[in-house]
């Protein structure tokens, strides 16, 4: 998860392995600086490699904090769980696509973005509803309330070049050592391989301030060390721009301590350890001929988790569990340009997922999912309308215990983008989406918790927004402003409720939540002042959530836990010759740690500010070298995102990166 500051000046075609020519058309309309997202029928936010490298981010979780509408549940430290909730729908409603194919975790349903390095990521895009730029995509892309797309890419090879190397090392506070290297090899004009590897070791012990009423103590976070290895091999066969095959093998292996919540007075420390192994092999082939566009995808996914607590007070003095899950995935998609303004598509996906756990009387579930999605898209110069209909069939088999009923569900999405006045770069966009998430295997089968009677949890979304993207003359050269108001309703929300005694909980379709919000973002590009180039980007989120689960409850109509009404991010950049300086700030308003919105549960607002300075050594024959220095949390702000999971204070990182 090295923060390698690499600026690949790539031809757009290489970057957009999954995109159609459509996106390239959009780019031409605007200044090349402006994001190609203003015409999208659904809200989309994007970070390109050069921006990501300036956001002081090791993992994708750090980077997406700069998107509006996104709350990252961060349990602190480097190895702590980091999940993303988009528009307060909860982590299970966001799909994460890695090079065009969905990552999956059938056990918990949430992808830990803290485990995904930004080191070799070229582009991070967050789509509300579903990726709206392309009809030819797997049916699974339609199956979530929002989709986070991560893309890796190829650098540009100058004609005689065969090898491209991008290597770097990071070190810094908390005992960080993080070397990484990506080697790109051009076998021929059509076949490319990329081997990306990264190793990360962090001691992770950082000081934090523990407030306890009138007393304040400085303590050290312990058992938060991690070491992780990532190996990634990509093979890309680019026969033509419209006929490409790519195959990826991915391996991640880590061991980490789980420091747990900070417990007052206790001298005992957490002895919980977690070993993770993730392996997947995926490939896709996309072909475009005339009016037809095909995309075939396949994936094998394997996840291994080993949990150990050597201070658990049972008869053996330890709790140890091994969980494994496997998924087989096949997808075919076809899109056809029926008329110049009309495209139709159909996609079918098959997913088989199964799980093993050494739990008492475990069910050993196998889930077969078939997704069928039909979509239509109508494009006129100033109006675009998209609609899709998704059918989901879920069939589940278990070895022991009760079997949940089979599911068959039909869910629609409609979206449009309209430019009311041809002379104005203003577009109005709107979407409606109704989608659900299936109960996870933990929800259904976890010992003394799971409930096989669970129904899917539904999320209904309504969105109305505007975009304004313009190149202007004057000090501000280009600007992009977006604002989207939305209303979401979650029904049959799956929550844990206690049963009989506190050792026995059950998952129930209990909750109903209303979410009203506003996402706003702006990007400004300024004319150079002498040799100084400036850049400013900001995002703001307003959210008002209401728990409507139980009218008689004290928390009825109260805000959801850990959901600030106001939050935002700013990132400003300056380039002067070989020096780049970036300033990043995050802000979160006050919020409640529990659903009961009483003063005791209110957590104070916080903000953090980071600075990065990078210096590019003058070009020389031994490659392009860059040194970077990051100062994170400059004012040593002591804050928790999740109460009693303290976040790190001031820290630094020093990086060296080389491109050959």
């Amino acid at each position, binding site marked *: 998860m090295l923060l390698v500051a690499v600026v690949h000046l790539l031809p757009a075609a290489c970057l957009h392995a999954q995109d159609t020519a459509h996106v390239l058309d959009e780019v031409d309309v605007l200044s090349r600086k402006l994001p190609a997202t203003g015409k999208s029928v659904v809200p989309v936010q994007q970070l390109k490699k050069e921006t990501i490298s300036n956001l002081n981010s090791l993992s994708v979780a750090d980077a997406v904090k700069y998107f509006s509408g996104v709350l990252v549940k961060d349990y602190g430290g480097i190895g702590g769980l980091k999940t993303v909730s988009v528009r307060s729908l909860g982590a299970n409603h966001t799909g994460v696509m890695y090079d065009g194919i969905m990552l999956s975790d059938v056990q918990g349903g949430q992808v830990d973005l803290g485990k995904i390095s930004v080191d070799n990521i070229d582009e991070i895009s967050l789509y509300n509803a579903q990726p709206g730029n392309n009809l030819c995509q797997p049916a699974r892309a339609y199956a979530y309330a929002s989709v986070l797309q991560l893309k890796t890419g190829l650098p540009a090879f100058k004609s005689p070049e065969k090898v491209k190397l991008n290597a770097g090392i990071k070190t810094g506070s908390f005992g960080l050592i993080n070397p990484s290297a990506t080697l790109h090899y051009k076998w021929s004009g059509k076949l490319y391989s990329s081997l990306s590897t990264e190793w990360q070791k962090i001691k992770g012990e950082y000081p934090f301030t523990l407030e306890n*009423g009138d007393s304040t103590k400085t303590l050290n976070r312990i058992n938060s060390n991690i070491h992780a290895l990532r190996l990634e091999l990509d093979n890309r066969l680019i026969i033509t721009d419209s006929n490409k095959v790519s195959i990826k093998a991915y391996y991640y292996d880590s061991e980490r301590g789980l420091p747990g*919540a900070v*417990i007052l007075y206790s001298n005992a420390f957490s002895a919980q350890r977690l070993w993770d192994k993730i392996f997947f092999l995926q490939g896709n082939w996309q072909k475009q001929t005339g009016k037809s566009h095909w995309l075939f995808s396949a994936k094998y996914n394997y996840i291994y988790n080993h949990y150990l607590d050597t201070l658990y*007070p*049972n008869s053996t003095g330890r709790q140890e569990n091994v969980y494994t899950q496997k998924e087989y995935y096949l997808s075919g998609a076809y899109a056809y340009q029926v008329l110049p303004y009309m495209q139709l598509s159909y996609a079918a996906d098959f997913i088989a997922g199964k799980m093993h756990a050494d739990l008492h009387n475990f069910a050993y579930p196998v889930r077969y999912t078939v997704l069928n999605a039909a979509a239509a898209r109508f494009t006129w110069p100033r109006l675009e309308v998209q609609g899709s209909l998704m059918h989901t069939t879920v069939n589940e088999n278990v070895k022991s215990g009760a079997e949940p009923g089979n599911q068959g569900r039909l869910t629609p999405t409609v979206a449009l983008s309209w430019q009311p006045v041809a002379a104005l770069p203003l577009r109005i966009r709107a979407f409606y989406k109704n989608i659900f998430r299936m109960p996870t295997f933990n929800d259904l089968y976890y010992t003394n918790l799971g409930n096989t009677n669970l129904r899917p949890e539904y999320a209904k979304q309504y969105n109305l927004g505007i975009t304004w993207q313009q190149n202007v003359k004057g000090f501000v050269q280009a600007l992009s402003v977006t604002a989207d108001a939305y209303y979401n309703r979650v029904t049959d929300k799956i929550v844990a409720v206690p049963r009989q005694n506190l050792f026995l909980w*059950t998952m129930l379709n209990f909750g109903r939540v209303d979410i009203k919000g506003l996402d706003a973002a702006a990007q400004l590009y300024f004319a150079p002042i002498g040799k100084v180039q400036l850049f400013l980007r900001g995002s703001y989120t307003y959210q008002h959530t209401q728990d409507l689960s139980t009218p008689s409850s004290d*928390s009825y109509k109260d805000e959801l836990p850990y959901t600030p009404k106001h939050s935002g991010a700013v990132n400003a950049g300056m380039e002067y010759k070989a020096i780049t300086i970036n300033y990043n700030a995050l802000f979160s308003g006050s919020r409640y740690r*529990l659903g009961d919105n009483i*003063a*005791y549960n209110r957590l104070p607002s916080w903000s953090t500010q980071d600075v990065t300075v990078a210096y590019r050594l003058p070009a020389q024959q031994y490659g392009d070298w860059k040194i970077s220095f990051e100062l994170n949390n400059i004012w040593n702000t002591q804050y928790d995102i999740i109460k009693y999971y303290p976040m790190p204070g001031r820290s630094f990182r020093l990086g060296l990166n080389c491109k050959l």
Partner: protein
Amino acid sequence: MRKHVWKWLLPVVLLINACSKDDDGPTPPAVKPTSGLFILGEGAFGSNGAMVTYYDLSTSTASGDIFKQENGIALGDVANDAITYGAKMYIAVNNSNKLVIANAQTTKLIISISITLPRNIISYKGNVLVTSWDNKVSVIDTATLTVTKTINTGLNPEGLAIQGNYLYVANSGGLNFPDYDKTVSVIDVNTWAETKKITIGPNPQKVGINSLGQVLVSSFGDYTPANPPKIYILDGSNNTLKDSITTPVSDMTVFNDTIYAYYTEYDENFQIKGIHYPVIDSKTKAIVRNNFITDGTVITYPYGISVDESNGDVYITDAKNFINTGEVFCFDRNGKLKFKFSVSPAVGPKKVLFLR
């Protein structure tokens, strides 16, 4: 940080009619009327939200988190049990690994003793006895406030009681699912040595005594039809299992030979089928009343039951959903609601202590 609202609600003078008692003597038999209540709130696991709420019976006002008001620091994480004995209050703060000892009338902290995962507390002849999940009972001398003895028990001991010359400890093995402990440790109070283990049903929890010299032990069972929850009756004269009461209970307290209990019943879809408040004569096993509550009062999630010895009032705490602040319901001996109050901001109210 914003000032918390309840700070302003704290009465300036907490206890006007409070009397002090000698530490080392047993409580006098005549029970004085209750002037106020202390309610122990467990707090959610990992939230450091253990609290004591004070409720003044003469003004009907509740003061939240008075331990923090009095001491400037929080009580800790997950407070499972508390008693008052003499002039002191003893609080088992489970996940903070502490037995907190405080002034019984003001909750002013006196000292905290390290005990690993303490659970339940009783008093006996100038000592307090504390079960802890590391398979022990600790004996604490209330004069010196030090641990004078630790006694090994079965797995994850919970409730405990003394009948005659023996201490009875319910060994739950509650953290050993599915292989729960099924025994009660019998410990000689003169030597503090375990003399035997009596096997009952899985996951023993609460221990009470009656005037027949019997020991009553509730068991959760193992959530299978073969081993449902039950109350086991031990004969204190020969320390054997004598009988059982098949009425399932989640929690119970024994007062004047009568068992007051509650039990939440679920259907196969995990929906609440009914909440029962059985009243049982422990001497005859006869169910006195199927439902203690006679006025239709609804409690969301009963989580603790205590009886005021001075007047027989029954207090049932409501933990709601363990997220929202809880409530305390006071019923007269006939099961009619006398009053109720919120323990805001405390979560998971459990034990009620009576200030006299």
